[in-house]
Each structure stands twice: as structure tokens, then as C-alpha cells.
């Protein structure tokens, strides 16, 4: 195995919105490398659709405090309020900055950035739905990703495309560098660096039906978790209400923001019963639970009564064409339905991890529940947990999160690099990894221990036991299943023995992270005996502020997790019953 050594001041792992935004901030001040297992423009930020909220007040009166109120209430009071204030306040400049870099936002007649309504966003603390989401048709994420990449191209940022980072080296609590595997050659690359940002995105592939890309396997959180860094709030996983039936492909909340309505098999607008004031624009956790409840009570449509309808037929061809062109194209392509004329079959789809690598508001990674900073290591975007989304993220706040905290990660890298001297990493730093890879290649392939079979069993069991509604029984059952899967994984084998583009080898390593993410999720969910935001325990249906106004910190321990807790940082908003 050929080993190549590089030396940089800073390395960013992942080239989606958070990684690219961090790069723009850091690149002028250091020798920087961005490492991505894809090409930057393939990152899943590009799949985000509906918008990015900021209280620009271009359509109606708005104020970032109202945005913060909605975010905290939407989080079911688990978000840290000082962090939410930063998110919502810096949102305004973040949107303006993207516009200045060329982002082609949709426009109002007066030439200002257009804004639309979105779930859980209101004016005057709940009075009525707010026009707050800045958008570029229904491909806002695509435009953000393109704009940030274009900016990086103009700055001459150094990229290592199709390199999979597999390890971080930390000695005496100090970051020494990362180790990567080059897909095109099978070579191992040692990146000597003292500052690393993980911006690797989410891990929706722990579930069977998901809006996530195949590449979203929790690599960054997995690498750190295996090094003893905890994962925060892993029990909170968001299911987006409107995935295309069976495929899970996302149909943006913008569809409901523009007036789309959810209906059950009888055509009833059932959200009127669950959220009388803002109905279809209730936050995602509530709408997903409402759909799951309708289905379990026999109100689902179709031969298996297992979906509901997203009805856009009353919006008119012009609105659909102008404001929702991409998602309606997805429906035409994959379901062969014309959304202008027929309602669309939808079901909740695994979408977004509120939990992840714990960070402070400077995107610095925390190594325990007491807030101890891990020097030189940063995280941002879906891979991280600041926490600004708490138990349930509001739509549009993820695109905001990646630019606000991506920028902060970049700034923190600059601060650290200017205050420290380069470390040196040993030439043998990659030896254990080379050995692991060689073992995988040497082991004879069997179907029983194939990557795909273990992963399929993982995704199907997580779908069955740890999705929207959970109980002690389902979670205990899943704990046992995960133990068996982990045992099988210890013997995992691959068929492909080649060096060039051995994507099966990469999938085998990603599966390790998927198992880690599942173990942390299930252990955290089992320990939280309450229902809050996206975590819904049927055996503990109420929120329990006395015992659970706290963030969970899962530390890897054998095949499960050891749990510790940290109090939520409150602010001006007192927890109250969450009604819409």
C-alpha cells in the first residue's frame, strides 16, 4: 500500500455547505485542504429545496427575535437559547453575504430577495405563519452549494476530491492530523495538520426509507465517536412528513408553504385536528406523527393503507411551475403523476439528525458533557450538534446552520492556527489503518458477512423499531438486533479486491459508522423516558421537564453507549406547552 504524506495548517473534511463555508473563511489565512469523498458539487446540501430563513422583513414585518422564539419552541425547548440567538441574528448577514457572492435568489417585484412561508415559522410569537424563508425556486440548497463552490474556485481553494477520511490522530489531547484513503488509487494519505473541521453531513442511511444520499453514513461523528468523543442528542432524528411513497425522495415543505394540503384517504384535511391554528404548516415532528397516526388508525390511502396525499391541485399550474418546479418534476419522473391534476402519495421519510458531534457556539468540538474543548478539532453542519435545533429542527434552519456555524468553524481554525505551531505526525500514523484495509482485502468473501446484507438488516430493523414511534420494547429489541449485527460486522467481507475505485471497501467502512450511529441513537432513545420533539415514546407520551430538560451525551462503550447528561442552556423563553 503506497503512503503519501502532506502537510497543511488546516484540513476540512466534507465539502457541502458547512465545509465550503468554513473553507472560504479559513483559506486566506493558512495552508488549507478540503477533503471530500465525492466531488464538492455532489454534496447533499444540493438536495435541499425550500429555503433559508432570515428575518429580512422583505414581505412583512419581521424580527430575528421572533425567528428565535419559533426555533426554540420548534425544538421543544431543548435547543440552547444563546446558540439560537446567534443563529437567528447572524442569519440576516449570512443571506446578504450569499447574495453578494452571486446566489440567484428568487426576487420580489421590488427586486428584493423573495421570502415564503415554512413550517413552524410565525410572526409575533405564534400569531400567524411568517414569510421568512429566502429561496431560489425549490432548489435553494443547490444554489447555496454552487455559489459556495464558485467562491472557492475563485479563491483557488485546494481540494482533494474522492478521498475518504478514515481516521484522526490525537496525541495527548492535541490533533496531529487525519488519514485518508484515495478512491482512485487505493493509496493512503497522511495529512499532517493541527486544525481539522468535520463537516461530513448526516447519517440518514441508518433507516430504510430516507431522503438522504447513499453517502450519508455519519463518517465524521463515527471517526470521533470511536476515539472516545461523545455524540450529543442522538435520540432526536427528524422524519420529514412528505417523502415520495416508498422512495423517500423529499418533497419540500415549501409545497405546503405555498398552500399545499395534506389529506387522508377520505380527502379530509386532517392537520386541522392536530394543529388547529397553523394546520399543514405545523413543525415536522408533529406533522409526521399526525401522518403516522392517521395511517395506524386506518385512514391511510392505497391498497396497503400506508400513505396520505399531498394535494397541490388547487395551487394552479403557474405557481407550481414558478415556485415548485423541481419537486413536481420528481413526482412526474418517479411516480408518473401530474401534480397539477392529481394529489401525490407521501409518507414520512428519515431526513435530518438533530444530534451529532457536540460543539460550542465557536464550532469547537467538546470532549465531554462538562464542556471541555478538544483543541484543534471543529465540527459544523448536520454532523455537529451546537445545539440550535434541540429535539426538532424547523425547516430552513439547516441551510442557515451550515453557513452560520460553518463560518464560525473557519474562524476558529484561523484563531487556533495563528496561536499554535505546527505539530509533526509520525510516518507510521497510518499503520493501523493500512492493516485494517489489508485485513478486509485478505478475508475471503461470503454472502452471510457481505456489507450489503448486514446493512440491509440494519436499515430494515431501525425502520421497524426506532422510527417515529418508539417504546421500551421496540428499543430493547433493536438493542439485541444491533448486538447481533455488530457481531456479524466483526467478520465483514468484501468481494472486490482491487485498488482502483474499490467502493465496496469504502461501503464496508461506512457500515461501521452506520452501526455506531444506530447504537448511539437506540441507547439514547431507550434512556429518555419522555416524549419531546422528534423523540416519541408511546410508553412515556408526555414531555418531562423535571427530569429531561437536558442534552444526552453518548460515549461509545462496547456495542452500546454509556450516557451522561448536560443541562439545557435556557434564555428568555420559558418552556411551555407546545401547541400550534
Amino acid at each position: 500500500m503506497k503512503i503519501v504524506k502532506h502537510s497543511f495548517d488546516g484540513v476540512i473534511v466534507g465539502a457541502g455547505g458547512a465545509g465550503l463555508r468554513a473553507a472560504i473563511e479559513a483559506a486566506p489565512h493558512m495552508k488549507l485542504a478540503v477533503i471530500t469523498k465525492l466531488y464538492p458539487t455532489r454534496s447533499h446540501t444540493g438536495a435541499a429545496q425550500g429555503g433559508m430563513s432570515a428575518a429580512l422583513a422583505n414581505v412583512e414585518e419581521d424580527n430575528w427575535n421572533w425567528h428565535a422564539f419559533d426555533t426554540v419552541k420548534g425544538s421543544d425547548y431543548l435547543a440552547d437559547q444563546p446558540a439560537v440567538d446567534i443563529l437567528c441574528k447572524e442569519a440576516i448577514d449570512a443571506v446578504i453575504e450569499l447574495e453578494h457572492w452571486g446566489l440567484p435568489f428568487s426576487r420580489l417585484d421590488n427586486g428584493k430577495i423573495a421570502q415564503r412561508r415554512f413550517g413552524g415559522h410565525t410572526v409575533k410569537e405564534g400569531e400567524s405563519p411568517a414569510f421568512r424563508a429566502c429561496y431560489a425556486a425549490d432548489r435553494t440548497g443547490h444554489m447555496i452549494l454552487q455559489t459556495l463552490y464558485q467562491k472557492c474556485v475563485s479563491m483557488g481553494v485546494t481540494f482533494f476530491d474522492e478521498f475518504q477520511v478514515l481516521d484522526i490522530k490525537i496525541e495527548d489531547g492535541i490533533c496531529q492530523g487525519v488519514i485518508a484513503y484515495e478512491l482512485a488509487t487505493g493509496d493512503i494519505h497522511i495529512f499532517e495538520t493541527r486544525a481539522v473541521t468535520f463537516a461530513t453531513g448526516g447519517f440518514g442511511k441508518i433507516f430504510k426509507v430516507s431522503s438522504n444520499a447513499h453517502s450519508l453514513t455519519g463518517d465524521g461523528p463515527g471517526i470521533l465517536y470511536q476515539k472516545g468523543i461523545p455524540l450529543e442528542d442522538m435520540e432526536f432524528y427528524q422524519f420529514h412528513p412528505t417523502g415520495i411513497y416508498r422512495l423517500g425522495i423529499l418533497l419540500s415543505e415549501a409545497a405546503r408553504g405555498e398552500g399545499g394540503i395534506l389529506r387522508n384517504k377520505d380527502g379530509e384535511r386532517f392537520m386541522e385536528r392536530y394543529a388547529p391554528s397553523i394546520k399543514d404548516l405545523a413543525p415536522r415532528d408533529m406533522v409526521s406523527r399526525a401522518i403516522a397516526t392517521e395511517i395506524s388508525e386506518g385512514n391511510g390511502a392505497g391498497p396497503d393503507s400506508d400513505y396520505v396525499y399531498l394535494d397541490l391541485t388547487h395551487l394552479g399550474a403557474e405557481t407550481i411551475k414558478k415556485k415548485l418546479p423541481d419537486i413536481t418534476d420528481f413526482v412526474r419522473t418517479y411516480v408518473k403523476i401530474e401534480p397539477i391534476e392529481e394529489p401525490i402519495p407521501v409518507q414520512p421519510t428519515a431526513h435530518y439528525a438533530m444530534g451529532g458531534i457536540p460543539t460550542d457556539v465557536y464550532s469547537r468540538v467538546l470532549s465531554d458533557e462538562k464542556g471541555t474543548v478538544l483543541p484543534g478539532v471543529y465540527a459544523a453542519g448536520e454532523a455537529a450538534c451546537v445545539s440550535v435545533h434541540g429535539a426538532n429542527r424547523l425547516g430552513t434552519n439547516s441551510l442557515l446552520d451550515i453557513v452560520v456555524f460553518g463560518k464560525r468553524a473557519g474562524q476558529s481554525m484561523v484563531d487556533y492556527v495563528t496561536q499554535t505551531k505546527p505539530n509533526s505526525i509520525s510516518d507510521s500514523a497510518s499503520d493501523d489503518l493500512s492493516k485494517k484495509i489489508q485485513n478486509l482485502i485478505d478475508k475471503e468473501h461470503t454472502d452471510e458477512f457481505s456489507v450489503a446484507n448486514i446493512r440491509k438488516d440494519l436499515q430494515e430493523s431501525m425502520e421497524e423499531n426506532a422510527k417515529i414511534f418508539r417504546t421500551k420494547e421496540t428499543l430493547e429489541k433493536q438493542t439485541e438486533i444491533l448486538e447481533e449485527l455488530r457481531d456479524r460486522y466483526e467478520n465483514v467481507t468484501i468481494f472486490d479486491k482491487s485498488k482502483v475505485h474499490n467502493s465496496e471497501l469504502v461501503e464496508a467502512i461506512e457500515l461501521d459508522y452506520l452501526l455506531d450511529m444506530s447504537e448511539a441513537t437506540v441507547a439514547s432513545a431507550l434512556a429518555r423516558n419522555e416524549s419531546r420533539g422528534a423523540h416519541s415514546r408511546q410508553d412515556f407520551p408526555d414531555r418531562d421537564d423535571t427530569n429531561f430538560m437536558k442534552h444526552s451525551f453518548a460515549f461509545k462503550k462496547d456495542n452500546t453507549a454509556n450516557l451522561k447528561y448536560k443541562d439545557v442552556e435556557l434564555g428568555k423563553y420559558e418552556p411551555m406547552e407546545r401547541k400550534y
Partner: protein
Amino acid sequence: MDINLKILRYDPESDRKGHWENYIVDAEPEERILDLLHKIKWFEDGSLSFRRSCAHGVCGSDAMVINGENMLACQVLVKEVGNPIKIEPIRGLPVVKDLIVDMEPFFDSYKKVMPYLINEKEPGDRERLQSPEDRDKFEDTTKCILCAACTTSCPVFWTAETYVGPAAIVNAHRFVFDSRDEGTKQRLEILKDVNGAFRCRTAFNCTSACPRGIQVTKAIEDIKRETLLNS
């Protein structure tokens, strides 16, 4: 139903040239071609190599030649392409392994046209204004996902690899027709070159190949016209 897939395979570690391999896959008519490739890779032959990520036509990873035409494997259903299905790597870029080609020359051409907003004026602390009509002028070309389906369907590109190709011109168009941009002169200078827009022979292959429905040939014509008007 059983689908017969013929895939052009090439392993640089053991093959001197590509060869066809046949696979029989059980598939539903509604399944994506990408789903079939995954069935082969995951349950039959793990060495089959192809790129993919989002699986719904927005990341641009899985452009390939399916029954002779450039498509994204995740955007085409079994029932749309018939049986058997022939799959080859996109043309005009060096094949690295199986359906994976070297994308570097493609991205190099993209970078040549200065694909970023150029405007030296201080923008102030609020957004630059742009009317909905001005915004509409480049709407079509903002949709590009850099999948290379257009460029690798172009007969000019097949014979002249120095030609910047349709995708690069689309990305130039996105800025040339943006009322906020001031780099038109520099970009058109680049596209006036012997390897620029005038190499296009209006075959329309690019327009048919674009999985995002961009009117690629029209965008190239717009750039040619703009170049003539500016010279």
C-alpha cells in the same frame, strides 16, 4: 420480471480493454436503473464500479450511456428503457474503471470560464436589487449540476478534447446574463477562442442529454450572439 443488463466493464488492474458482461436482474418496472446496478453490486458482483450519491437526479454523479443515450441512472426507470439494457461509461473522457471516467478534464474546462460572480463594486449591507425579469434571464442555466451528460454527448467534444464543451458554456451563460455580474467581457474573450462556443455545430445532442431540461444549445447560441454583439 427478469431484466438483461449488458454492462461495458473495464478493470485497469487486469484488462487491456473493455469487455461486455451480462447480468440477469429481477426488477420491477418502476425501479431506477441505479437500483439495478446496486442489485448487481450488492448481491452479485461487488467489483462493479460506478459513482452515485443522491439517487434522485440532483447531485450529478451517475451520468452514463444507457441504450446509446446519456442519462442519469437514478433518473430513468426500467419501464422507460426496455429490455435488454446496455450500459456504458460516458464518452470522450478517459475511462478509469467500469462506468467511472476521469472527471478532471471536465472540471478544468468548467473552471476556465470563470464560473463565479465578478463585481468589484461595494455591495453595501443589504442585497443587490434584481428585477424578477432580470432574474429570469439566466434561470435556465442555474439548474446545471455538472454531471457532464451534455459535454460527453457532444460529437465535437468526442473529436476535440480541447473544446470547453457545453457544460462550461452553460456555466458562463449563468453569469453573462446575470445583471449583477461585470465579468462578461473577460468570459466572452475566453469563449471567442478557437476552443470556445463557436466550435459548437448545433447538433442539439446536449439539449436532449441534459437531465435537468436545460436548453443547452440555446444557451450556447445566446453566448455566440453575445460574443458577436460585444466584438
